[in-house]
């Protein structure tokens, strides 16, 4: 018995030893050390030019594209079937910021344009710093690449271009913003919990970033990439905005920016690389410019947003046809008559009792951006009467920039029409306005800018000496020259998304109060009778027979708080150093 027990004990000992050896072998580091097999890690990246370039590619979808869809719905130019909540005073403070994070990284900066869904008044989206972080991460790492500084600086230039553009957008939305110009992590408390930087100070940094881009981006960049002139175009745009903002809000130091805007515009003009698109057909060139399959190589395109069959396509043409959108009465009224005089002064103006009358003898850009009789809606479906009472248009002034009769483009998400990111015409308008604001606008300046635009569409020249103040001007106290330059800008850039920014920088929010901004075309009983009764039975008109888009209100009321968007409440509760914008 004893012997057996001993034998058993021996076996148990063996087992125990075996077990022990297993236990001790458990810390098998080589077995447990596993690292990514199909992913890039930062430690090995940023080694050559390709690395820098591929990294910078992620910024490009953040470019602002003038694709017409819903752009300017938040202004006095348009009145969509669905009322704009900010201008209607019904916008509520978002509780949290909306982020573009995807899987722990920042993949999608396509927040507001490529997909064609600009949603204005997005303070949640605008208070997102993912793109800023992507830029700052680049700046913290690009020096690892073993390539010449000049090459590196091209990509630094791209990065700073996008960082500047993003901060400028934040300034437009929020005024003062949290300015983060270096790479931070979750422990960077002083930055994360810091106060907002004042508007002017941020813009000075923005200008510095843009200047670096101007100085380092190539004159002839690779296909699709940013170059020196794209940077100059951004500079002109940003500086005009900031210069006029400073002037009209009375915060000072505007001259530098106005001058910078003019300088940048002149550099572009003097380069001789760009000119307005024209085939000598003033009645169609302007319209045709916006339904081009290919803008690469177009002389008016400083930077186009391109689309190619089967590679990248959009659905804008179709969406525009079904957007329930429409220019406001106020916008239409502002279009000059063909003699160069405003409707309030011109003997050629035939009144607005019928849509045909109203379009007669007007600036050719009228019929080239508003659907009138004979416009081919789609493949031979000609418009006779404005298609009110349907999803085609709300006001009767159906916007047709970017709309064509092509079935191919109508196929949902199959259009290859290109859009502008920077259009030469805007540069000319910047030059004219900046010079005028500086008091330096001469007839030569006007001839080189405004009158070039007018030449394309066959309008009489603007002659400073002959200008007469429009008695129905939106800006009765402004000098007539600036007033008329602003009108030219409004008409030329209609539906391209500049108007609300313009209203803000001109400190002209009260334009929104004008009842005409939410009225549509005149629908006289005679005209109404020409429609199938049931189609227009729900349409309400005012005492003068103008279509009332929003029957509950006769006019909108501007509140100065609308100059700035509210900051999401969560951001304020997280960081006590951030105070809400006034009025919200």
């Amino acid at each position, binding site marked *: 018995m004893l012997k057996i027990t001993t034998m*058993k004990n021996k076996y148990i000992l063996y087992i125990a030893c075996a*077990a022990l050896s297993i*236990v001790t072998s458990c810390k098998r580091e080589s077995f447990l050390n*596993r690292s990514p097999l199909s992913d890039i890690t930062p430690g090995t990246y940023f080694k050559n030019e390709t690395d820098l370039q*591929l990294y910078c590619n992620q910024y490009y979808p953040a470019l602002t594209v003038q694709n017409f869809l819903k752009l300017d719905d938040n202004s006095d130019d348009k009145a969509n079937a669905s009322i704009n909540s900010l201008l*209607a005073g019904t916008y509520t403070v978002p509780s949290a910021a909306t982020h573009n994070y995807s899987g722990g990284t920042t993949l999608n900066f396509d927040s507001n344009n490529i997909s064609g869904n600009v949603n204005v008044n997005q303070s949640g989206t605008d208070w997102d710093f993912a793109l800023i972080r992507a830029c700052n991460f680049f700046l913290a790492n690009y020096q690892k690449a073993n390539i010449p500084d000049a090459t590196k600086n091209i990509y630094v230039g791209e990065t700073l271009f996008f960082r500047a553009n993003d901060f400028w957008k934040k300034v437009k939305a929020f005024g003062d913003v949290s300015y983060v110009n270096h790479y931070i992590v979750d422990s960077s408390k002083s930055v994360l919990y810091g106060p907002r930087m004042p508007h002017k100070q941020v813009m000075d940094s923005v200008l510095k970033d843009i200047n670096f881009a101007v100085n380092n981006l190539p004159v002839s960049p690779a*296909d699709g990439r940013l170059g020196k002139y794209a940077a100059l175009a951004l500079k002109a745009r940003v500086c005009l905005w900031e210069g006029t903002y400073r002037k009209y809000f009375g915060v000072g130091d505007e001259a530098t920016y106005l001058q910078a805007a003019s300088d940048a515009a002149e550099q572009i003009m003097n380069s001789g690389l760009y000119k307005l698109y024209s085939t000598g057909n003033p009645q169609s060139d302007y319209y045709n410019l916006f339904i081009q399959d290919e803008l690469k190589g177009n002389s008016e395109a400083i930077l186009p947003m391109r689309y190619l069959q089967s590679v990248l396509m959009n659905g804008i043409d179709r969406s525009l046809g079904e957007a329930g959108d429409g220019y406001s009465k106020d916008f239409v009224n502002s279009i000059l008559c063909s003699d160069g005089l405003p409707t309030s002064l011109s003997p050629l103006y035939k009144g607005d009792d019928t849509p045909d009358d109203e379009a007669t003898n007007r600036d050719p850009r009228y019929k080239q951006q508003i659907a009138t009789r004979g416009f081919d809606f789609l493949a031979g479906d000609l418009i006779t009467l404005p298609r009110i009472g349907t999803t085609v248009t709300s006001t009767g002034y159906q916007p047709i920039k970017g709309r064509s009769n092509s079935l191919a483009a109508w196929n*949902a998400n199959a259009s290859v029409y290109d859009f502008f990111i920077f259009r030469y015409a805007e540069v000319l308008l910047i030059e004219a306005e900046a010079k005028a604001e500086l008091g330096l606008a001469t007839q030569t300046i006007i001839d080189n800018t405004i009158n070039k635009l007018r030449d394309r569409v066959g309008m009489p020249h603007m002659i400073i000496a002959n200008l007469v103040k429009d008695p129905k001007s939106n800006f009765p106290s402004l000098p007539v020259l600036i007033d008329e330059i602003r009108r030219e800008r409004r008409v030329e850039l209609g539906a391209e998304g500049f108007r609300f920014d313009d209203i803000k920088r001109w400190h002209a929010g009260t334009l929104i109060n004008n009842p005409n901004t939410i009225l549509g075309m005149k629908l006289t009983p005679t005209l109404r009778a020409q429609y199938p009764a*049931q189609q227009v*039975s729900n349409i309400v008109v005012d005492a003068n027979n103008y279509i009332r888009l929003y029957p509950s209100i006769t006019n909108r009321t501007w509140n100065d708080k609308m100059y700035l968007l509210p900051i999401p409440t969560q951001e304020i509760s997280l960081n006590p150093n951030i105070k809400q914008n006034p009025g919200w």
Partner: protein
Amino acid sequence: MNLNAFSIAVYRQRLLKKILLVMKLTTVIMFLGLLQCSASAFSQKISLNEINTPLKKVLKSINQQTGYVFFYDSKDVRNKNVSITVKDASLEDVLNTCLKNLQLTYKLVNNTILLQEKDAVPATTQAVAVVAVPVTGQVFDEKNNPLPGVTIKIKGGNGAVITDVDGKFKLDVPDNKAILVFSYIGFTTVELPVSSGQMVVHLQTDLGKLSEVVVVGYGTQKKVNLTGSIATVNSDKLENRPVVNLGDALQGLIPNLNVTLGGGQPGTAATFNVRGGTTLNLSSQPVSTTPLVLVDGVARDPNLIDPNDVASVTVLKDAASAAIYGGRAANGVILITTKTGKAGPTRVSYSGSYTISRPTRLVQQVNSMEYIKMFNEANRTGLKSGGYSTTPFSEQDSTMAAAYFNAPNNNPTGYPDPANPKRYRYVGNTDWTKVLYPGWAPQQQHNVSVSGGEGKTTFLGSLGYYRQDGLEKSANQVYQRYTPTLKVNSDVAKWLTLGLNMSMTHTDNNQPAATRINQGGAWLYSNIPPVMPVYNPDGNFAGQGNYTNPLAVNALSGRDIDSQNDFWTTGRVVIRPVDHVSVNVDYTWNALNDNRKANLIPFNEYGVNGTFLDIYPWTNPSQVIENKTNNNYNALNAFATYENTFGKHYLKALVGYNQEYQHYMLGSTLVKNLIDPNLPSSGINNDTQPQVGSVETEYALVGTFSRLNYIYDNKYLVEINARYDGTSRFQPNSRYSFSPSASVGWNVAEESFMEGIKGTLNQLKIRASYGQLPNQLVPGVGSTGQMLNMLASSVASSAYQYPYIAVQQTGLVNYLLNGQQGIMVASPGLVSSSFTWEKVQTKNLGLDYSLFNDKLNGSFDYFITNIKDILVPGQQLPSTLGAPVPPSNSADVRSHGWEFSVNWRDKINELHYSLTLGLSNTSNTRVTKYSGNPTNSINDFIQGQDLGNIYGYVNDGFYKTDAEAAAVDNSALAGYKWLAGDIKYKDLNGDGKINYGDNTLSNMGDKKLIGNTTPHYKFGFNLNLSYKNFDFATFIQGVLKQDFYPNEYVFYAFRDDEYSIPSQMTTNYWTPTNTNAYYPRIRFSGGGNEQAQDKYILNAGYARIKQLTLGYSLPSAAVKSIKLQKLRVYVTGANLFTITSLNKSYDPETAASFGTYPLNKSLSFGVQATF
């Protein structure tokens, strides 16, 4: 008397049930080969060389050499040693030699040898035998299956026999007053007087029986000796139901094993959860956590197992029971054991069923007239109040729609649009739900198995087939699953057993590609108006580019075909070097291959009279996606067990090692512009920039574990576990974790002071346990955590497998560079390098009881679960960071709960019945530590608050007049003008405004806590009856209380926008003439009225009859006449009736995830046969 059997094969045989199958010829041939091998196992040639060896050991040796099984009373062989040296001797010689000097005699019955003590007066025995009365009979189980191997003894006498394969026995008794005792492991022992003629005896399964053995981690244990919280279900509860997968089958059977059905779409997996355990994740949502599921000791997806192959399911609920599995077991463990072959003649079994099913409950949308009326009503409100408005339906629309509605045969469903003569304005009346789910869809399943084995080797082979057609008829979805398995075990030598399990699951899923692109793939349509017909008046599919017509997409776009092979092989070696010790080494290899091909075919959309309008955009251009996944997984388990009894001391010790490795590879291609869109092959394309992708990740885990069981005098039970884990998911200095646990039990009924009531109280055991388990799951990737479903790319992603390493993602940008979409490398996310395992601590107090001869039994458990160091974003940070906050181990949660089960089993004359009730509850989960929400925002977790809390307003009726509404500042909720009929909320904080303050706990304005979404009081109730050849079973399952906060378009008319279609339930809305309505005034996007509020918190509790089965077994005589051993037919209804207060548009089981594919209710007809 304690009967022992020492052949492992026989031991398994007794635990397992018999199922009859038919099999394809090829498979039969395959098995015939095996049969020939094992047939030679019954050998008569015995060689022994034993000197003074315990008799037991010698008998074992004979068993191993011949296959003959011995039965004896253990006291008869105790302390008896023999010496024998023979070579190639006959069985008879050997036995005679062995027993020569012992007071033992033997009897050979079939292949079984019975040893008995020699009668004191052998001559008398002989004499009695001569005058004996012969008795014959047959023994069956409750379902009339013959029971082989039942021991029949004469009470107070010496005769004993074993039933043969047909359950038959023949025995001589001294006189016709003798009492026979029938006993069989797992069945209640019965005593019956002999009767003349053929005796028919039915034995009852006894789950509560003390001798029952349950599967535990790395071994088995007698149920009576368990100290942890463990629940088991055997195959009889899983069979006979038209269930797609094991998840369906297990729902409600085990208290606090929560099974969530993913919906009724063919191929949809169920998810599991034990005891409501939740953790927190990055998306600020509590995440239900998945237990570790082991099939025959290997982590597998239970959804891919044929329920027919399952022998038993065990759930290890508390940390002490699960601790042996360490880092993967934090959320409990489900152990699934599949059926095994057993010694005896070859059996062929078949079971099959044919099922028809249709959705349980479906959304009911409004008809065209109601729709137009509501649409224009909502639009008028929008216009009146500055809210959202759009182009309304015109008078002409209304007139035409009314005409069609009233006389569909004489009126068109559309007319040319005045604004665009090429397009119709639709004025039909379509019930889209009915169009999509028109009737019954078929399912069928078949399972054939062949099993047997003699002596040393046993085998089981089976082939299962399952086919289900989708409920959405036009989709023509067909899901098929094939599950061949093969299990072979061989006791090669007395010290060595070898085992091999091979199984494969092959699935084919063929469905429209539309479901993959989420177009036309929604299960319930929220945005197709009832005015739209299925077909335009001219016969083309309706839609016209404005609406996705699901029938058009299903019919015209391509197919998505997924084919998967999941191949598993486990080889096992068990060595018994000495008595009481066994060493098990098993190695598992798994190859999971998935091929998925989906192609999209563009199709045209047409307007008036077939005018071409456009190409449906979401399947254009033509494309094909091919994904090929290859996942290799292997696991090594090695463990040694020592088990022995020293007098009153029982000791069992286990020590082992576990290692796992997984390697995942995905290759994907997406090409557009196929040269022939109907030939979906990625090589045949005109795509200048085909997209190619790949994912490759690895994962490794090692663990050592040990367990010690000690029992004193069958009364005092102790178990101690320890495990040390290491994972590749964390960085080296935080990668290891130690998890200890302990549990104790006290068998009160065994105490001497209980002796008096032992007859009544058969068992009373009190248990207590404590354990801590680490959790290596990484938050942020949803609930699928384990090795399961490796095809879910999130689980295989780098973010999941290497969470401490930041990676830079790549992709395409929507911008053309050099004429192609730019390729980008993104910035890396933020990661914290220091995070490590979460810890789950469970305390459990339990009670097992059994009374009245085991007729009444059950258990009760109370538990407390603390989850510590949960990985959550350490601290909420301002958006200026520009990236998600990295996780750190910084939150704790706590919950507690109980579960209770009771079973009563008895018979009244020939009516056998059994009732089982399981009831469980888990408390709300309380966040006990969380620093990520310093402001106590109610949109995030809050320290000290429960998960699932619903904060909302108090409904105070409707505003009666516009003036009353205008007087209250509701602008924080909705900026439009509030009107009569909008909801009046109580101004709880009395500031004159209705608002949400800053949405924090201390200032939530007029909100308050109005409910909690945690389900409470889950129950399952089983009733089984059998009467003569009939059997009946029903199973009811449900939840008594659950707050449900509906927030879908079916609940609020035009919930999202003007495109959402109201449901029937929303038609009772406020109008000036219906001021007593359930719903407020309707608006497009009427967010103000759709705030969470007490009035609209519903109770999603329900009771559902999951199963209702009636079966009939043909009488054995009839069965015999057609050469069968058993034949049973049955009919089963599943999910036929539901009791709930929810509207018909909601299925209470899927209400929380509204919009999923509807669940089935079904009717099945089945047959089971054994040859």
